[in-house]
């Protein structure tokens, strides 16, 4: 049965800071009950992930961001078509656009935590900055998952 909340952390665990999204899932797995939360991971987003949004009440995407000067950004997503459609990977906003195009209806409320990252080398661990940013981001995760309402999440957006 589909759970109402989906947290989708994506990236490659073996490519330095690209692991941030997956590490957040590991954090959630060890700190929260998963009774109402589905965790999903993949290397990158693709259009079939639009099908994973079906029957959700809240969706949280978690990814590393090349904006290394920020700890993290938390935003509500709107469906948006972008050039990332032309790569093997697409953006979370694009996943929403695919959902809307396929289902002819508005996607569920979706948010993105983009955590500042700087190093993506194969075989590397997290950079020092990414470790700090991860710690900051987990505080927000704690807050969000203890308040599973759209209104509260919207208030936290920056």
């Amino acid at each position: 049965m589909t759970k109402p909340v989906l947290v989708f952390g994506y990236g490659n665990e073996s490519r330095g800071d690209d692991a941030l999204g997956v590490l957040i899932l590991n954090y959630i797995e060890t700190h929260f009950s998963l009774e109402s939360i589905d965790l999903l991971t993949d290397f990158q987003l693709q259009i079939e992930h639009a099908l994973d949004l079906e029957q959700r009440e809240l969706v949280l995407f978690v990814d590393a961001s090349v904006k290394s000067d920020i700890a993290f950004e938390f935003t509500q997503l709107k469906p948006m078509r972008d050039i990332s459609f032309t790569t093997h990977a697409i953006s979370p906003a694009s996943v929403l656009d695919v959902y809307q195009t396929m289902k002819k209806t508005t996607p569920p409320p979706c948010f993105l935590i983009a955590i500042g990252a700087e190093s993506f080398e194969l075989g590397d661990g997290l950079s020092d900055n990414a470790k700090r940013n991860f710690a900051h981001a987990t505080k927000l995760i704690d807050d969000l998952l203890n308040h599973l309402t759209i209104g509260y999440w919207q208030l936290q957006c920056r």
Partner: protein
Amino acid sequence: MYEHLETAKNKDSLKRVVIDPVSRVEGHGKVTLLLDENNKVQQARLHIVEFRGFEKFIQGRPYWELPVLVQRLCGICPVSHHLAAAKAIDQLVGVDPENLPISATKLRKMLHFGQVLQSHALHFFHLSSPDLLFGFESDIQKRSIVAVLNDFPDIGLQGVKLRKYGQEVIRMVSGKRIHGTGAIAGGMNKALSKEERDYLLTDIDQIIAWAVASVQLVKKVHRSNLPYYDHFGTIRSNYLGMVQPDGALELYHGGLRVKDAQGDTLFDHIDYCKYNDYIHEEVRSWTYMKFPYLTALGKDAGWYRVGPLARVNNCDYINTPMAEIERVEFKAHSSEAMVHSTLAFHWARLIELLHCAESIKALLHDADILRLDEPVKGERRFEGIGVIEATRGTLFHHYQVDENDIVTKANLIVSTTSNNMGMNESVRQVAAEYLSGQELTEPLLNNLEVAIRAYDPCLSCATHAVGKMPLQLELVNSKGDIIDKLVKHDTGQIERIQ
């Protein structure tokens, strides 16, 4: 051919066009074109700008970690690496493919068919169908899968659901959609439950019907302008791929066959463990990616192509009925013994997709996939080689381990590396025919990318973070001054920077 365009004689007097990175291929590549004063192409190269360090990543790890570890080399074909590594470590525990439990072999094949199906669906429907349905020089806003979903909703939705189904096969067999641990040394660690089998059976007939429709679609597109499709980016090459002992198409395990451009068989049923006797890799100073070639033919004549076009060309038949009908038609459409059209990669790819769908159905009706046999072991070895036909072509994993089970040496030849020369040749052909003496426009540059994209190259793997993948085009004169620059932002906007 177009080898003369690899290195220009008078480079200093030429203008340089840079496309960096190539979009809609996995990872980052860069195409450089050196033009003379008359805008005639004098040099064309596809560069790989990232050094991947796969072997270094693997060395020093215990061998039993490899099937899981190597999945992280590639976000697009993790299962292919998983299975190639599993075959290699089977050998380390003394197990040759014929001694693997039959249930494990069938489950691995099913996993592989799921991977190839979903990856071929990704490439065709998500990456190439916009070009094929709207035209190579159509408005950039049209060249996206969402435009396909808008204008051809049935086709777009079929693409999404085909890919999803392949992912579900992977999830059921390996336990996870990615990073599954299905294959282990000497066997599998999971069989399908009856519930999982029944779940996959529910949709398989629909999947086959969509696969049939996709082949009809690509045939229709190809035939809509046959001279163009048969000529665009087309080069004549050798082809390498795996076949069964009776010559049938094989994706999981078999001998290697090489045919030349005339269709004559140069090598047949080669034991892939002896690949080093047949294939060498050349290093060239201007790119990180090596150039493999057949040693017996030498560097100049020995390069070859791999992947769907090679496999469908090389095999004697396909052992699933609907895909075999399509193979016969595919081969018959060419006036030559081999189909050389680079754009025919798409056609061959969808024949394979159909073959995978048919094969999955056959395996779902095979009771062996419900049985989990104990992994087998034999006499310990210190060297293992695993080769499979991955989505993009023949994939080699070769490991040596010490007495402590630690990998001391690793060598991987990935499919895209085998197609390196082929992609460069296709770039040169397109550049020579379509860019010389013409204004640099985005549709023209897309023609170059279309040629590269036909190979479905995987240039780097699985790094992606918010904000990556812009496309940058530069025109540089012989003094090194940038005289024109186009940037395609990740919003889709194209900006000319003065």
